């Protein structure tokens, strides 16, 4: 079936630096798809380019056939693309509730979804009326993800959601993402291979602003050689 999102030979500059050297990528409909890669490889830059926070100098980005390369970030977002940035983008001055409210379409919550989010992340319920700057590092991460799933999105881009999360929470999150992935498509940037493995259907490995490997997760997970080639997984061994 037709891919949700297609990147073709995308080049991105940040200030005077040339960061992405032609990223090409296809995100199929539904499920979780993962981008792996070392620090500084260009994962975050790729995501930011998709949502228009960096502008691609060359190449095209198409969402459900529509070219969004030159669109403004807000317009891209309105197409139904949610973005969870690396720094979580929490509004510390606002309460948890206000943070969530801003992520809804019309300012009112879908009770069903809210209940589910509170189930996945109990802390959200506990701190509902507290200022978000008061949240712990991990709680901030949870809030960031909650914001992305409070509405039904078409595509959710998530940059390293497990960073600093306790194992138990990560487990919940896997469950949550499986659930969410049933109704939308998730593009996930990860460092935590196990997490990625547990969720991902397809995987792309990026290095120095280029895609160096594309394939199914199963294939990568099964093939130790590939793994050590693209992500020297020394520690785990």
């Amino acid at each position, binding site marked *: 079936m037709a891919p949700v999102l297609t990147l073709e030979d995308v080049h991105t500059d940040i200030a005077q630096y040339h960061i992405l050297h032609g990223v090409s990528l296809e995100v199929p409909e539904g499920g979780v798809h993962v981008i792996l890669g*070392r*620090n500084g490889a260009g994962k975050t830059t790729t995501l930011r380019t998709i949502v228009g926070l960096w502008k691609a100098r060359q190449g095209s980005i198409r969402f459900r056939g529509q070219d969004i390369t030159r669109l403004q970030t807000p317009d891209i977002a309105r197409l139904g693309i949610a973005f969870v940035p690396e720094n979580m983008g929490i509004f510390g001055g606002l309460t948890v509730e206000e943070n969530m409210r801003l992520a809804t379409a019309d300012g009112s919550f879908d009770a069903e979804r809210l209940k589910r989010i509170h189930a996945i992340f109990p802390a959200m319920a506990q701190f509902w009326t507290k200022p978000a700057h008061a949240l712990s*590092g991990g709680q901030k991460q949870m809030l960031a993800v909650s914001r992305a799933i409070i509405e039904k999105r078409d595509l959710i881009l998530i940059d390293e959601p497990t960073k*600093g999360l306790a194992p*138990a929470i*990560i487990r919940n999150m896997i469950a949550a993402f499986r659930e969410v992935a049933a109704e939308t498509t998730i593009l996930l940037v990860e460092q935590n*291979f196990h997490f990625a493995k*547990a969720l991902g259907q397809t995987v792309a490995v990026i290095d120095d602003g280029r895609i160096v490997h594309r394939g199914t997760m199963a294939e990568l997970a099964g093939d130790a050689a590939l793994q050590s080639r693209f992500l020297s997984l020394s520690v785990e061994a």
Partner: protein
Amino acid sequence: MPKTPSIRTQDLTIRFGGHAAVNGVSCAFFPGELTVVVGPNGAGKTTWFNLVSGQLRPSAGRIFLGERDITALSPSARAKAGIGRAFQLTNLFPKLSVLENVRLAVQARAGQGHRLFARATALTGLTDKAMHYLDEANLAAVAQLPAAALPHGDQRKLEVAMLLAMEPDIFMFDEPTAGMSVDEAPVILELIARIKQDPSRTILLVEHKMDVVRALADRIVVLHNGELLADGAPGEVMAMELVRDIYLGVGAEEVA
């Protein structure tokens, strides 16, 4: 252990509004020992760190550095006294160069900050030292870039380099490898291992990655809802029912 504790907290408590983020935590740490602090998100690990390094003032309880009560000291005073701290959410001098970031830490250690009529750049001693620590964290290559331009991972490393440069007796790391790729993390871990070799040093480490915990910990302290839940050797703590339930969760190993 006969040794006297290098750092010790006694009934340490802080409340935010009604909610006690850290609640009556008393425990002591010894030189040459690496303690990993674990606990679910929001357990109070970072807050407890903030209390020890002085970013927050406790609602109740005391903090001792050796025999000395440092509860009333300002963060800078504690830093001078030998408590070094790296932050969970990266916290640098963004517009200054990577080198300058570290050099400032060295200079603080050398206690030359208030010198009026010397040329900072002329104090080559400081600069060399700074370079040395950048090498250790293998950041020498990017020494001249503004800190803001580093990717997340390298920024984490810079955090650690600055901590080293402060040459403290107490090292406090808050999730140093968070957001680092699997092939970058080892650099940090080796650094920590090397620090550990000096028996006069006390190391506190907040970490979620179980493999890291196993690799480094001499001792594990578990915080939960701001309270001290467990404290002991890695093996036994990890084995505790309670801990598995509230922290690791069943089958957690697969994911961490």
